[in-house]
């Protein structure tokens, strides 16, 4: 246990801070629509030009190849500077790219990785289905091999930014229908392929980010398969091996800023003199500090063990539930003015309604608690 801030780290922090203060867009990110996609492409391109794209990606694939401490500094300063979230580049940067780095062919890497970093291609995820949510291994979208193509039929759901995406990481069943984890294939789907249809789903916060995707005899070249045919489950899980504990830092810093803004409002309008408000605010501030420390603990584990195991789920659940409490606090604090929505803005109502996504996306809190129970605590699986 120790804190040791080197001169190198201080200089790096200053470099990051300077670059961000010169480059972070001053206008807020549009909530949805093609203008959001354009905004995200621009911001990704600007980061690439500055040499800050793919900070955790290896240099040989165009990334910055930063160590864990430097990644943490970048992410902290990123949040502090009010830089936009990864937005529609989240799947490309956090999931599809790392999967290709781990399991892609040389041709796949050469074609896709730099396009992602340069802000040229947005990726979406085609994992969940109407009949396979938490039980992902029950997926039934079929792919038949015909010559040198896969022919896909079926449907995916909760396809975030599918309506603006260029590519999709798609899980299809190539083996027997009831094969569970076996017989699944991970394939790159070009969203412009004939037979792909994307229908919008508006969420409870009133924006269009989610979609349902339909596949009608969609022909995908076999050269787009990542890993082996029928080995897609392991390919999909490959990114878990890259988890190093830094994944939550940007969210946590963003939340810290939101809470600080709420605290200032509460001080300015006197709400903080209400002891119930003060106590709630103090608890949220304490939990926010705890979530940062949980990231630090996970990074310490990853430094030692090379990777972070299921223990990372502890902080992930804690963060997602805290985000909901912070958003609810902001909504409560707004008082009667919460009746009014500010059109197309991240007002208190938007933050609150949107926060319900946190304990659903990427695994519900219930599934994550199963993971903690079974893989962290060693409790038995149910019969």
């Amino acid at each position, binding site marked *: *246990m*120790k*804190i*040791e801030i*080197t001169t190198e*780290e201080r200089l790096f922090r200053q470099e990051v801070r300077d670059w961000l203060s010169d480059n972070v867009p001053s206008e807020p990110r549009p909530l949805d629509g093609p203008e959001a996609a354009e905004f995200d492409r621009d911001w990704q391109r600007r980061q690439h030009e500055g040499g800050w794209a793919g900070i955790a990606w290896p240099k040989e694939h165009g990334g910055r190849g930063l160590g864990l*401490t430097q990644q943490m500094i970048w992410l902290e300063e990123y949040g502090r500077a009010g830089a936009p979230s990864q937005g529609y580049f989240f799947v490309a940067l956090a999931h599809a790219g790392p999967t290709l780095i781990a399991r892609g062919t040389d041709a796949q890497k050469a074609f896709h990785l730099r396009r992602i970093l340069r802000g040229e291609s947005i990726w979406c995820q085609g994992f969940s289905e109407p009949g396979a949510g938490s039980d992902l291994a029950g997926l039934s979208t079929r792919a038949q091999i015909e010559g040198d193509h896969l022919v896909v039929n079926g449907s995916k759901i909760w396809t975030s930014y599918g309506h603006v995406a260029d590519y999709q990481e798609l899980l299809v069943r190539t083996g027997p229908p009831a094969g569970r984890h076996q017989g699944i294939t991970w394939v790159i789907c070009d969203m412009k392929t004939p037979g792909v249809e994307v229908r919008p789903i508006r969420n409870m916060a009133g924006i269009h980010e989610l979609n349902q995707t339909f596949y009608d005899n969609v022909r995908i070249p076999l050269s787009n398969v990542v890993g082996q045919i029928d080995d897609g489950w392991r390919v999909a899980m490959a990114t878990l091996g890259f988890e190093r504990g830094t994944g939550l830092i940007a969210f946590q810093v963003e939340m810290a800023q939101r809470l600080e803004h709420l*605290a200032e409002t509460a*001080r300015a309008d006197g709400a*903080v003199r209400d002891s119930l408000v*003060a*106590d709630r*605010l*103090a*608890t949220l*501030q*304490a*939990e926010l*500090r*705890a*979530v*940062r*420390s*949980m990231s*630090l*603990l996970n*990074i*310490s*584990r990853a*430094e*030692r063990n090379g990777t972070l195991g299921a*223990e990372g789920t*502890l*902080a992930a*659940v*804690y963060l997602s539930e805290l985000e909901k409490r912070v958003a609810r606090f902001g909504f409560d604090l707004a008082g009667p003015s919460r009746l009014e929505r500010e059109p197309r803005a991240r007002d208190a109502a938007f933050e609150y309604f949107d926060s319900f996504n946190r304990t659903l996306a990427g695994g519900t809190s*219930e599934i*994550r*608690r*199963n993971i*903690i*129970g*079974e893989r*962290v*605590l*060693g*409790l*038995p*699986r*149910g*019969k």
Partner: protein
Amino acid sequence: MIDLIPDGDQQALLNSITSFLRDKAPVGKARTADLWEQIAALGWLGLSRPESAGGIGLGAAEEMLLMREGGRFLVTPSLMATLLAVRFADETGRADLATELAGGTRHAALAIPRDAETLYIIDGAQAELLVTIEEDRVTLRRAPSPGQALQSSDDGVQLSLAPIGEPLNGSADGLQARLLVAAQLTGIAEAVRDLATEFAKVREQFGQPIGAFQAVKHACADLAIRAEAALAQTSYAALCLAENLPDAPAEVAAAARVAGDAAVTGAEAAIQLHGAMGFTEECTAHLFLKRAHLLTLFAGRGSWQINALIAP
């Protein structure tokens, strides 16, 4: 870099503390107050005194590790009181007193005012000195005559009531005190997580271990999540305090708040997870609950935490 995991030396210290307590002071079976000479001989009481003064020369991080185990094994609060009294004595120029306390020949106990005239003393039968924590200061008092024995809501300690005496001159910084409280609460949060989880693995109903049922599994997961938050935050707060960083008061206050919640809520859940056994005196879960509630009285839950966390 920031490393929140004990290094080799710290781990060795931790192992020696744990193995001593596991052997000599299993929870609910022994009173650590009776082991004082052995504890003094191990050097725990002078852990953070400089080696030139006969101490071990370690810091806030090691004291945090010691008191985390103190919480896990429900060690007498006099251990924390003594560590704080030693610091007080050293910081106020009473080196001889510090040496006697660290050597186990003089005794300190934790106390808390009941009203303007009286205070409660915890495990103070042998104590010559009383330690109180007020807002951000630690104060020492001479213990009056034994005082009036009372029944304690924490049956792991002896409680007495005595008139408040005059404090000794000077005071010491209270942040270390709040940190050590948080450390014990963290140890309790980890202990109840382990207690409930181990029970859920062996207790069978409907033909399988109850831990296979999601209602139980998720409750255990919650214990793990809260204990993780407490451990991470208390570890980081200890380092901030050791390095005297500007954020140390807020980090320690956060640790006290998060660990207090983890310990109390966790102990309550551990009782429930043991079923009717959890309601018995024999099951140790209630001992953790009672100690957690005792300690939160010293966590500055009111104005101190709020000021440190949301300072205007």
